[in-house]
């Protein structure tokens, strides 16, 4: 997947992150009787009408599209919880509140496919957008504090989408700082790296030719 996106940026595109998020488990209420599904990622079901079951998001969405189930809104996607989170996010400018790693993607998928299953969808959506904005803002302001002395940045509770956005910048910044701090080390590392690889490369080739 990484190969599909721009290799220079070395990030996933949002749709790729969303694809990854489809493996998250959600709870559905099927309205059909169906035997267990044996997937590579695991067995899901059996499904009984009106009895909640846990399935990955992609399966939930697939079933929802065929109107075979309703998706239950995750606990964290309620208005009460989100308002709490939003308030906490605003109050603590240096910390991130614990939210599911894929909260942006999950909520987007649910809003796209299971809007009718979410109570107060409107408010929930705007709350999630607000939370996202607040957190992005926090990440951005946090980046400003990176200085030459920084060798690592610790960001707890950062979500997939947020990491994805700052990853290329962060990595390169740190690399740059590192480089400017100790140019010799970088050179050495580069040299040893470039020397080592041709040697190892030749090894197997010779073997092949001999055979």
């Amino acid at each position, binding site marked *: 997947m990484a190969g599909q996106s721009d290799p220079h940026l070395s990030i996933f595109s949002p749709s790729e992150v969303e694809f990854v998020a489809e493996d998250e488990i959600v709870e559905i209420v099927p*309205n*059909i*009787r169906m035997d267990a599904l044996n997937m590579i990622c695991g067995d899901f079901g059996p499904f009984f*009408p*009106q*009895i909640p079951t846990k399935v990955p998001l992609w399966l939930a969405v697939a079933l929802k599209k065929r109107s075979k189930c309703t998706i239950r809104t995750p606990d964290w996607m309620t208005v009460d919880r989100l308002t709490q989170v939003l308030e906490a996010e605003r109050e603590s400018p240096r910390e991130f509140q614990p939210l599911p790693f894929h909260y942006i993607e999950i909520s987007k998928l649910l809003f796209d496919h299971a809007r009718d299953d979410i*109570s107060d969808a*409107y*408010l929930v959506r*705007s709350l999630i957008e607000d939370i996202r904005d607040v957190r992005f803002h926090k990440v951005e302001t946090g980046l400003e504090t990176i200085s030459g002395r920084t060798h690592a940045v610790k960001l707890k509770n950062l979500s997939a989408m947020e990491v994805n956005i700052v990853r290329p910048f962060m990595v390169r910044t740190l690399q740059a700082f590192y480089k400017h701090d100790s140019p010799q080390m970088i050179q050495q590392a580069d040299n040893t790296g470039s020397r080592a690889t041709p040697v190892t490369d030749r090894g197997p080739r010779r073997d092949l030719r001999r055979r």
Partner: protein
Amino acid sequence: MKGRVVKLREAHKAGSPALCCASWGPSGQHVVTASAADTAVLIHDAATVLAGGRGSGSSPVVTIRLHKDGVTALAVAPGPSGSLASGSMDHSIKFYTFPEGEFQSNVARFTLPIRSLAFNRKGTLLAAAGDDDGIKLIATIDNTISKVLKGHKGSVTGLAFDPRNDYLASVDSIGTVIYWDLCIGAEARTLTRVAPTFRSDNSVRNILCWSPDGQTLAVPGLRKNVVLYDRDTGEEVCTLYGDHEQPVSCLCWSPNGRYLASAGLDRQVLIWDVKSRQDIERQKFDVRICSLAWKPNGNALLLIDVMGRVGIWESVIPSTMKSPNEGIPDLNSTKAPLFDDDDDDDDEDEEKPSTSGGLEDDMDETLSDSTPFSHKRPRRKSTFDRDSDNEDLTHQMESTKRMKDKHNKKEDAGKARGDSATSARLVTARMQAAFQPGSTPPQPGMRNFLAYNMLGSITTIENEGHSHVEVDFHDTGRGPRVPSMTDYFGFTMAAMNGSGSVFANQCKGDKNMSTLMYRPFGSWAGNSEWSMRFEGEEVKAVALGAGWVAAVTSLNFLRIFTEGGLQMHILSVSGPVVTAAGYEDQLAIVSHASDCLPSGDQVLDVKVFNISEGAQSMFGRLVLTPLSQLSWFGFSENGQLSSYDSKGILRVFSSQFSGSWLPLFSSLKARKSKDESHWVVGLDANNVFCILCKTPQSYPHVMPKPVLSILHLSFPLASSDLGANSLENEFLMRKLQLSQIQNKMEEMAALGLDTTTYDDEAFNMEAGLDQCILRLISICCSGDKLVRASELAKLLTLEKSMKGALTLVTRLKLPLLQEKFSSIIESFLFQERMLNNKIIAGTGRFCSNATIMTSTTVLTTQATLPSKFMQDGNSSLESSLPKPNLVNQQCSSTEPKNSAGEQGIEIKDSTGKVSSAFIPSTKVPKSSETKKHRNGASNSAVVDQNQEGDIDHTGAKKLSTEYCNRAEPQRPVNPFAKSSSSKEQSSSLLDSIKKMKVDKPNSRI
């Protein structure tokens, strides 16, 4: 007065024309203003605004700067302790106290700017709208969004609640007016393009206004006029057409509805006498006026222009004419009661104000007798109780409140009952009325369940004299699609199964007779639904099953009909019916046996009929928890009669002790928090399916669709000193299930049916039970409860598990138990052998052990073997390994020789007979009619010597009994001994039991 110019004073600084709004406080002493170009909301003293015109320049009383962007909308809730709501371009709505202007809460968040706000007349509901699609209705009591009304295509600029609270009118920037019915929360009427269109110009907006009596709605018209529309029909009543040179943008009714003020884009403000449809006053301003408001209790008009300048036009109506406050319509007297509930009616009476007092007094009264609401999300129930508004849309709250009241009453009643029971014993409790299992009480305006079971649900909603009944199957993939039905009878009870549904209604007065109706879901003949009418008789409970429909009536008649409507049986039942349930052939009826006992307990009888046989299969007392009522009654998925009472105990009828009720589930124990209750839907062998309800709700609502939760059945065990309650429970449950299966098998055998289908199930049960017992034994041993362990060992049914138990105690070094266990095994073996002998002697055609234990592979090799016995012995373990068999069999053939004593001889005896009878029986290996598990066990009597090496190997040395010593010699040769000796864990025992389970079906191929 005429010709007096109203002077405006700057309140908000605006560089360019911006939309401003202004409003009076409810008492008319304060004035609130806001501007889209300013983030502040200002509360002024009305007097200073009036004086401001003369240049005193005093500052506003309160300045609120909480919005991040311009404030576009204001609304003041009526009442002296009212509150102020402001909506802004920053997408948020905020509440403040009024007139103090203290921030209370953020109400709601939109995704786009807000354009309009409106409170309803009692201030319980706030409508908010803007560029978002959808008008949000917010219950001010807890700031929850009770509804989102969608339908406008443009941004909504004007909102107005009908004073009678039936409708909300809204107008958007493209001129569409929509009447929303607040009861159903949907569009009642849409008038497209009736108002001017201002697409992008945000400094102009359409607004609308209800006349104070709610009869007409005033909307700016397309032709520089004001159009009045009728409340109910939405038809144009009249237009006010006159001297406006450009379209009207803003209007306002006088408090009595006699006059109307309108402001146009032509910078004029006109005052109309609505009756004569003529303008009586006018005033021209420098800039456009964008908001108008009549003083609620005086002859004055508040104005604000687009530059943010505010002013008050005093004495608008000439003194020669009627005052704008005279004859304010009294809405309460004309108001149609929306909720004629008892508790609401009381409030209603209190609310009825004196007409002379006018609007304000009215408000005073209303609000003084109810708690002033606060917007800080009051979750406390007490405010719910006291707040006495009967608004349509807050009826969710209302209903919870009402239910809570009921709940309290019930509790009180319960308490009273309890007290009386303990002290005086004078008050007798009421006998419970008839009910349908799985039904919920009807609620006005909402769907309720007539029936809800594991298969589907029947719901009904009353609507203008008739009801709509819908039948839904949970499994939408399989169940038939049943068209919804319009029901003119008003059915109050229903039952359904896979093939049809039955409905019945109570008789209402003399005209409406009680009717029973059956609707099949599918039939080979058309029009196969039928109905029956009962004269002077009322259906109390209905049930249906395979090919029959039953109804129990007020005359205590049990009427049984066929599926086609044939009246098959009419019986009399012994007492007033409580409920009825059907399952295939069985019909169960619960009836009152007598009045309640002095203690308050009900006396209920239950009868089970078998309809196809015309027999009564059970009669007895229905067991209830003291002082409880029956709340659910029915059959489990596998046909066990079950009941659930109001104290949350689920009971299942079992044939144990020749028929008794077993308490298998307690709601109180299963609930996770105190306010949870379980509404039972059904159960199967291991689980109960129920809907979780949070108090004050004790039953589920149709919307949102309830979700079933699965809870395990469990006996109400006393907390034992063993500390293994779950295991003990499992033991009891398995025992119960085993007995159920055995019962079924006996029944089938008695009918001469083939019971082989249940053999595997029964065997699995036994194996599971034994596993459970073994675990219990090990816990007993570690807890030093040796007597209990030996009792448990006696309950083991499989030979193999007995061996396992023996190994276990050997390993735990409990010689006492070892001795006990070996003697148990011996006596067990002895019994088995006696039984075998009897079978052999009794029946000429002995159906051999071998047929069950040997697999076909072994059968083929059998002919070459010298001793059938050996093969017999090993087959169970080695069916998959025919080759090592030979070695094994040879060694095991030495076994009987080694073994000394009676047993060995006996084994020889029996095996001799076995071998003699063996050959014919192999030809008919499946002719076995004896109970398989018996055979298996007796067979293993022969097998045991081999298995002993397998299981008991390590312990064998320590065993002092002769029996176990016999295992010694064969140890080095037996390949299984090796394999098992490497694993000394007790889990290997369970494995071997499992292996037996696997082997069994194989051997039957």
